[in-house]
């Protein structure tokens, strides 16, 4: 008998994505184009699943990252915090092809953290007195008003790590961490795409960012585009 945490390393993106089905809710890590599981994003389009609900902070930008899912027409709904210059999402939201639910960024993160931590709902001050309050329970606690926000679960989470070991312990690079840990914890099946795959024990236990209990499959992808969204630099002093 095999437990959920046996033999997590898979040979290919296609093998990692084999369990996906039409109509699933999929969380995908990344803040803009940073920290995106690029190979898994591409792999989902090739997998051919449709009618997906995507949970992502931005759902791609500049035609890159998750904008590929929008262009492939495989999404029915997007839950995000910010659209900005993502024209692929603007046009499909305007035409009604994709339903869009906009959530404050911190609430989005906390709804997933809560889901992963077994907390069904929580009170937050964010959004009180705004359109975000509509249809939600408001409660005064110690003289301040709060909204009741519900946990956000998913069928699958696709995350990007800098380093993974064979058990799925993860380390992230700089600001590529963003939503990845909370998403992994909130999904029934969490798939990690890592730049570096190492043996168990190579990551010191004190240096693990996300323990492998939250990860079910690991795929090693050594090459990434790592697209720049806004490349801002200063002149090096001569």
């Amino acid at each position: 008998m095999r437990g959920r945490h046996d033999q997590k390393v898979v040979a290919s993106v296609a093998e990692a994505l084999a369990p996906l089905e039409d109509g699933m809710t999929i969380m995908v890590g990344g803040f803009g184009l940073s920290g995106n599981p690029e190979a898994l994003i591409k792999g989902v389009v090739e997998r051919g699943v449709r009618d997906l609900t995507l949970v992502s902070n931005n759902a791609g930008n500049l035609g890159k990252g998750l904008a590929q899912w929008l262009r492939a027409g495989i999404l029915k709904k997007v839950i995000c915090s910010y659209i900005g210059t993502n024209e692929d999402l603007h046009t499909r939201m305007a035409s009604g092809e994709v339903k869009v639910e906009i959530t404050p960024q911190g609430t989005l993160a906390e709804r997933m953290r809560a889901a992963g931590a077994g907390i069904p709902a929580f009170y937050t001050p964010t959004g009180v007195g705004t359109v975000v309050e509509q249809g939600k329970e408001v409660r005064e606690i110690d003289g301040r008003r709060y909204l009741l926000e519900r946990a956000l679960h998913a069928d699958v989470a696709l995350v990007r790590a800098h380093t993974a070991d064979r058990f799925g312990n993860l380390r992230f690079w700089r600001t590529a961490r963003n939503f990845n840990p909370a998403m992994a914890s909130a999904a029934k099946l969490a798939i990690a795409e890592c730049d570096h795959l190492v043996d168990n024990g190579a990551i010191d236990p004190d240096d693990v960012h996300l323990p492998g209990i939250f990860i079910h499959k690991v795929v090693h992808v050594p090459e990434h585009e790592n697209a720049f969204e806004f490349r801002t630099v200063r002149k090096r002093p001569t």
Partner: protein
Amino acid sequence: MPYSTEAMARRAAREIPQGAIVNLGIGLPTQVADYLPEGHAWLHSENGLLGTGPFPYEGDEDPNLINAGKQTVTVLPGGSTFDSATSFAMIRGGHVDLAIMGAMQVSTGGDLANWAVPGGKVMGIGGAMDLASGCRRLIVMMQHVTKKGEHKLVRACDYPLTAARVVSLVITELGVFEPTGHGFKIIELAPGVTREAAEAATGAPLV
């Protein structure tokens, strides 16, 4: 002479205490960082960075080291990176001392509207609502009126709110103003700006 954007950024920098944790919004507020003495304050970027440094030197840029505006940045010694849930725990939990943001409207009661124009393209909320309701002090930096000349300092916001009763201070090209409930208190006027000129540009009493 109204304040230039540089003068506004310098003025906003003076509101930042030594050793404060500060979140600078996208656009104009980001420029405030240019006028902070080295080591003066810690800049928080809500995508998961504390100790945000200046733009990298050409050739050192890393697409996975960015600020909340998705610009490539650096991290200063003593800085740290963390996940989004932790980052917003810092904000919502009152650990961020000050946020400086742009705005479309600010009311005399300190209500903030800065995420959507009625009938306009919806850009999204991002971290604005969490920052506005969670940080300990909120300063708005903006042009005093819209490009069409409409008032932005108003009695009541008619744009969708970001948060209610949160703005402590408003810095515009005409001066520095504090929402007092019934009007805006003039803290200072930019050199050469008359009270009459400021009154004409404001949709609420100046007190």
